[in-house]
């Protein structure tokens, strides 16, 4: 039994590890083709990360990626593809920053209000896609693509330029700064308390605590509650779920609302812990990166945490490449290749596992079963 479990874990790890190895190989080829030494590049990146300041930066970069992956992964659990996280978090960050700057409340309540606004806006924007899917049969991918485009091509600029802008600032387009009560403290003091020397200027973002809590909540809700069971059942077989009393339309809308609410929190670590305002250069692309993180981590809260840290490491360590005259954009190529190859390798490993199970079953029943039955089984496994 124990050996079996170990084997299964081995298979589970085989896919992401081989996918990542393949992506490194492809990127190495790209580096080599453009006249750079890939070994130097990877060695420099590893050496660069080995430092407290950069470790903190890795974790800080991993936080939004992780939350984005949770948002995507939650919808995946029900076979819904929320590629609208990108638009949801940007709109949520803008609205939350604007609301947060316009009120003055005592610390924790202020932060809570900002988070609630962000979750509400994210949920509302994703909810449009959920309602369209449930009641009008519009595919959620198309709906969220269009909703993304509405946000990024015009709505942000319109709202920021006309209504939410800090007019005292003429040079840049930004919202008013959040007051101190709307900011989130860093975790430097707890770090110091456990004996880690935090270098000057580095701040481990306090939002990390919320990210961890969200990961735990994700696990509990999906794997340990009735709702999570209904969610997964609807994803696997909506008809069977309906037969057991799950209303599929309501489930779609609820899932999109929760996914959107999580998406609303993606920009919060940077808003509350770093920028303190929304502006034109607010980070973009976190929603799409979250899809890669979710797929690499196989929608499991722990797996997604590992892959978020991996992506955080890549984007932090990429900085050294520029200093060594190696284009750091190689990281984008690496990440896209990971995204593609991880899905391919899951599929290949699935076929491998199916084949090995068929073989094991055939061996176990070799005495009793007749040959044609085993042959039919193996054909089934090939699919």
């Amino acid at each position, binding site marked *: 039994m124990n050996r079996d479990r170990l084997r299964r874990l081995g298979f589970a790890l085989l896919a992401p590890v081989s996918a990542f190895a393949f992506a490194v190989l492809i990127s190495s080829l*790209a580096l080599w083709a*453009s006249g750079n030494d890939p070994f130097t590049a990877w060695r420099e990146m590893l050496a660069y990360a080995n430092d407290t300041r950069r470790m903190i930066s890795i974790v800080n970069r991993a936080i939004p990626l992780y939350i984005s992956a949770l948002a995507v992964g939650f919808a995946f659990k029900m076979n819904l*593809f929320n*590629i609208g996280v990108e638009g949801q978090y940007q709109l949520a960050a803008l609205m939350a920053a604007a609301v947060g700057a316009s009120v003055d409340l005592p610390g924790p309540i202020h932060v809570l209000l900002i988070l609630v606004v962000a979750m509400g806006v994210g949920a509302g924007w994703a909810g449009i896609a959920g309602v*369209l899917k449930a009641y*009008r*049969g*519009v595919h959620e*991918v*198309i*709906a969220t*693509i*269009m*909703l*993304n*485009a*509405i946000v*990024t*091509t*015009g*709505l942000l*600029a*319109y709202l920021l*330029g*006309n209504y939410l802008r800090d007019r005292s600032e003429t040079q840049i387009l930004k919202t008013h700064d959040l007051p101190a009560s709307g900011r989130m403290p860093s975790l430097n003091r707890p770090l110091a308390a456990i004996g880690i020397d935090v270098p000057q200027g580095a701040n481990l973002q306090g939002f990390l605590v919320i990210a961890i809590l969200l990961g735990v909540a994700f696990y509990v809700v999906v794997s340990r509650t009735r709702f999570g069971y209904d969610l997964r059942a609807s994803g696997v077989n909506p008809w069977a779920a309906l037969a057991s009393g799950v209303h599929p339309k309501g489930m779609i809308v609820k899932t999109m609302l929760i996914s959107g609410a999580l998406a609303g929190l993606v920009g919060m670590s940077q808003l509350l812990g770093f920028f303190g305002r929304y502006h034109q250069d607010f980070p973009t*692309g976190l929603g*799409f*990166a979250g*899809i*890669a993180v979710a*797929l690499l981590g196989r929608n499991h809260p722990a797996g997604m945490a590992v892959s978020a840290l991996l992506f955080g490491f890549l984007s932090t360590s990429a900085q050294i490449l520029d200093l060594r005259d190696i*284009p750091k*954009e*190689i*990281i*984008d*190529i690496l*990440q*896209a*290749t990971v*995204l*593609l190859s991880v*899905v*391919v390798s899951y*599929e*290949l490993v699935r076929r491998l596992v199916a084949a090995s199970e068929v073989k094991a079953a055939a061996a176990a029943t070799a005495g009793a079963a007749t040959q044609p039955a085993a042959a039919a089984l193996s054909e089934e496994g090939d*699919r």
Partner: protein
Amino acid sequence: MTTVSGTGTPAVHAARPKRKLPRAMILVGLGVILLSIVRVVADADDLTSAGSFSAAIRLGVPILLAGLGGLFAERCGVVNIGLEGMLILGTWFGAWGAVEFGAWEGVLLGIFGGALGGLIHAVATVTFGVDHIVSGVAINILGAGMARYLSVVSWVGKGTGGGATQSPKVTVDIAKVDVPFLAGGSIFGWDTPDVLGRIASWRWVVISDVAGLLRGLTGNLSLLSFVALLLVPASVLFLWHTPLGLRLRSAGENPYAAESLGVNVYRMKYLGVITSGALAGLGGAFLVLEGAGIYREGQTGGRGFIGLAALIFGNWRPTGVAMGAGLFGFADALRLRNESAVHALLLFVAVAAALAALWLLFDRRYRYGAVIGAIAVGFGIWYVTSDTVPRQFLSFTPHITTLLVLAFATQRLRPPAADGLPYRKGGGT
């Protein structure tokens, strides 16, 4: 074979092409008449000027090419969200080719770049059975990353004016022509009269507006636009009137039925998806050569997604895609040229919606009639109570239109039956 072609009974199949084309023309005709009336009422001459239509073509062609690209992929059953990435590859390779070799070489390399993206998409989705959406998202990230990487490798520190986010200036361009007699082009050095331009300048209702539209189509027309516009009838011919086109569509309607008839579905899907990328790549090259005259990061501005919108708006048909692209390109042209003309567009939408509502009520489809009627009243009020339309609204008009079409006209849309479904040879039941 009729089930494979997916158009129902043979009688319907035979009747369809005869009915479809006039309807598209009727719609365009009605649109122009309505535009011309609005032009007079709202006193916005730029609404139907040759310049506006000419700009609409320039801005609409990349959308058209992306949409046709989406059409070829989805007709063979592969959803292509990666159009944006393929468009980006087209812009980079197009600019690189134009800078290194020349204009038409740039076009060819742009096509090559897009086709490369299509090939990756085909390998992932067809050979390895990767989810089409995941692969598309990856290609969008990959396209942007590759363009940036290649820019750094080829242009940074070379002293040619290029850098990490833009190419050196493209100094070559594609020849432009004015059609003789219609738009005042010259034959052997003799300048022919600009007939359409003359008529358009008279500002007669409808007649001058039609002349403006045709003048926009025939005057200062780049050969590349001409090629792009020709691709619409070419796609109709290829997909609906050749055996290969039928096989390609059969892979998107019912791959297992196609397989049982001896069609190599994998090959059809590869063909469709690579063509899709090539078309998007051509769109990218067009953006560089006919638009900015330079490659710039972010230049595609989501046009791949607008192409997808045009594809849905056009009900997965080349003529429909062309109409969608024309409409979205026209809205974009007005946004850039003239804000008061944009305001007049509100009146256009209000009147068009009111007519549609009347027709629906006449047809006893009261619910939709009421919804469309409410939209008409809303736009009417908006027109009367405002002086300008915020520029940003027009940039997401295509996307809102698509959501509305999807929400209220789903019954009339017919995507290929096996669009986006996984296919493995011999996997039918």
